[in-house]
């Protein structure tokens, strides 16, 4: 087995073990892993199956049910644009379109250059600041399409944040 596979497994096992909650489930373990390494690799499915005493098929059944789990590593930076009702009223559709155009994407997804993972978000929980976007999990409120693109250009040159 290659060495980085070993490291990955170690990270996964640590993530599963780090859950300080009364009941550890398949779902909570998957969430902990996605928080720790940003996606659910095959090794994660296997480790959760072993830890929860079930089969890989059952774990994958749970993981694939939730669109929020991703099975491939995310790109360097994450972009989320809120399209909840408040943001929508405050013009988030313009931001969405501007960001999609900038990233050359048609819908949610990862850019070819490996820089950005882009998702819609149904509510980022900051309606008073609408419209809101989240760049690498940092919120920016009362924002315009142009400002969004400017910020995205800025984070592109910053250190990659995998999660």
């Amino acid at each position: 087995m290659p060495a980085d596979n070993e490291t990955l497994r170690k990270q996964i096992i640590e993530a599963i073990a780090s859950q300080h909650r009364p009941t550890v489930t398949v779902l909570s373990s998957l969430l902990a892993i996605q928080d720790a390494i940003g996606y659910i690799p095959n090794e994660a499915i296997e480790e959760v199956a072993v830890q929860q005493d079930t089969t890989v098929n059952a774990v994958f059944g749970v993981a694939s049910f939730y669109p929020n789990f991703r099975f491939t590593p995310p790109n360097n930076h994450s972009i989320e644009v809120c399209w909840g009702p408040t943001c929508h009223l405050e013009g988030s559709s313009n931001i969405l379109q501007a960001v999609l155009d900038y990233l050359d994407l048609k819908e949610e997804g990862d850019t070819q250059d490996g820089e950005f993972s882009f998702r819609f978000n149904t509510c980022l929980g900051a309606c008073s600041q609408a419209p809101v976007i989240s760049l690498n999990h940092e919120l920016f409120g009362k924002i315009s399409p142009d400002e969004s693109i400017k910020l995205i250009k800025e984070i592109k040159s910053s250190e990659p944040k995998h999660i």
Partner: protein
Amino acid sequence: MTEKINLTIDGKEIQAQPGSMIIQAAMDNGMYIPYLCYYPGMKPYGACRMCVVKAEAPTPDGSYRSLPGSPASCTTPISEGMRVETNTDELISLRKGIMELLISEHPHGCLNCHRIDLCGPTDVCLRHVTVNDRCVTCPKNERCELKDTVRYMEMELTTPLTYNNRHLPLEVKDPFWDMDMNLCIVCSRCVRACDEVRVDQAITLKERSGRSIIGTSKGISLLESGCEFCGACIDVCPTGAIVERDYKWDKAEVKTTTTCPHCPVGCQTSLDINKRNKLIRSIPVREAEANQGMTCFKGKFGLDYANNRNRIKTPLIKKNGELVEASWPEALDLVASKLSQFKGNSYSLISSDRGTNEDHFIAQKFTRQIMQSNNIDFSSNTNSEIFDNLSSMIGHSSATNTIWNLLKTDLFVIVSSNITEQHNVLGVPIKQAISKGSKAIIIDPRETELSRFADHWIKPNINTEHILIGGIIRSIIDQSLENHDFASKSCENFDEFRSSVWDFDLSRVSKETGVSQEEIQDLAKTISESTATSFLYSLDTISSEIKESTSTAIIDLALLTGNVENPGSGIYPLFTGPNEQGARDMGCVPNFGPGYSHISETGIGLGELDNACQTGDIKALHIIGNQASISSESGQKIKNALDKVEFLVVHESFENEFTAKADVVFPSSLFAEKDGTFTNLERRIHKVNPALGNKFDEDEDWRILCQLATRMGANNFNYSNSEEVFKELSPFLLSTNDINFQKISQSGQIYSVKRKLKFKPINISLNLNSISSDEFPMILTRGRILEESKSDAKIQLINDKNSITRNEIIELNSQDALNNNILEGDSIKIIGDNFELSGIAHLNGINSGIVSTTQLFGSIIEKVQEHKTEDPMLHFDQLNLIPVRIEKPE
């Protein structure tokens, strides 16, 4: 018996079991509510909504309260006085709407077409349904539940022909079955059968809402996903989404229920025979009490050898060193005249473990009465040591309880048995019970499927199992945890037995077995605290010298804790041959006669046969159908001794190494051509029915023997059919009730036995003949499991079929590794007599002197699939212990 609940369905007053759902109550009373996801025996699910009803329940003030909406009858429990309507106009239109949604993802042009029964695959279609979308091109056509349901509902032609084709690729790379998920209606019956019934979870429901579909984790092959290839998912699929690959499009002309010839569970299976008299499918019978709709890869996919035309078609006689075809009278005359010269102790007969009770009865009658010899045995009688003491200790040499009684067991004690492979269906209630909270203690050096379910998996030193169990008994007696009333009052010999256990000093037991004293005490506590314990043992890994003491210790432990015949408890000695129980009952053994009657002189059995042939004590040998046992150890020995035998008669269906050396070969019938009875491990008598009829000039073994006997002057071998033989043998089955041959149903009939419980003293008999030697100092224990999450199972495509290629991990003790100069991760080679295995060393704390490896079950399935026209048992690698040495390649 609990009181039944009264309710009204469609104005008809019926009674039903409390706790059942409306749909069950209706079905039990012969009423039909359309359904697709419901399946008897599985938990209510409510996925398809096809079984919607209107229901109202009485309130305390006498009025009726309707249940909100239109509840699904498969998830709504019945209550007293309930009124249910299943066929109102509103419900019918609701159901049609639901069905339209369902078939909007299934090709349905034919489903609701009025011409469906008139069309052929190449006809011009008035509705322009493309050929690929027609029902006639679906493998499940004419046995499709979806089609039947749509037809029942009289759907109109209004739905558009277009449907949402999922465009999913067909999955045809795994052994035995094809999946076309474009036909799936996502009822999840297969997922539930795999999870709830078989407890495997080899398939799952992936994704959700519109994209939800059946599959494995990330689409991995079934070979590594934990599939045991039992075909339960195929049997429950209501559409053509999962089907058997072989004879996929063939239609059944005749269906005959018979007994599977592969193991002593005696699965009842319905064989589909096509119009060219080929066995095309095997579908386990849900109503049968022995298997309850279950079967395994052998019973589902391992019967195709009955179609193999490469058979022995006529009698063969050896002339000038070559076998040439002969007529029946010629061959029978020759054998009759020859055998007359060998009457007495120089004659021996080995009956087949697949013989019917009738075959066994006539075989022993022929040997004892005509040939005046007691040299009779059956081919799988290699484990007789574990049966020798059953009669004296529990009154009869058979299991003390039924297979499905295991569902009620709280604790399983399983000693050296590979149940999920050897007696697969027996493993089903065990796995179900464990998944519902029962515990299991596995005593086995090998990793088997059940050891993954175990709470305690004990790996004692090789051949010390009896000492370990003795230690557990001692610990129970020391702590006064035994069921004293039962042991002293219901069983004989308790005091003598109790004084025999003082030898089993725990520190000594711990030293000999390598199991710590605390663990032994813990096991003693677990076993004595359990209210219902079942003991299962086949002692595969134990040397024959100590098999008897091991089985004695196990039965003593069962008697001591009072676990014999109560619900959930029992003693299950396990054997391999499908009708070994019958062979013993019929006295087809050297040491007793039919009905376990005493005989004056014990004959030569299978164990001593090779020696007796070599020394010339046996001059004439008569072997009946032993295809499957040739590869066994005793088969090998006998094969080497055949040259010394003066006259060899073989009854066989296929040519093999025995027929090659025979002087006369009689063509013998296969299981699907026989009419007779099998007795399974719970003493249940099952019917074996001639599903295929005679193909060539073969005959049943008992008929051949009768003809020989008549030619040799006997007049009491005139039977016109197997029913007459059964009539003669049935008094030997210790039965209080008469068993009518014609009326044996698919549930079979258990004959009762008298119990007599008696302890037998045990002693520490060390096995001094170690199975390892100077040349091969280590012992290899091989395990086999369904799925190994963390191993590197690589699936490669070979000839468009999935195939497992991986580096086996070989576990060995760190100290042994040091002595052999082996480091973690080194490639090493394990070499035994006729055995070689390469792999990667993994050092851990397993017992010194042991190397261990665990294969994937898929590797066996690949082999069986590769040789599918042959008997699967020929390619089934038993997990014996092998003496080996370790080598490190340069």
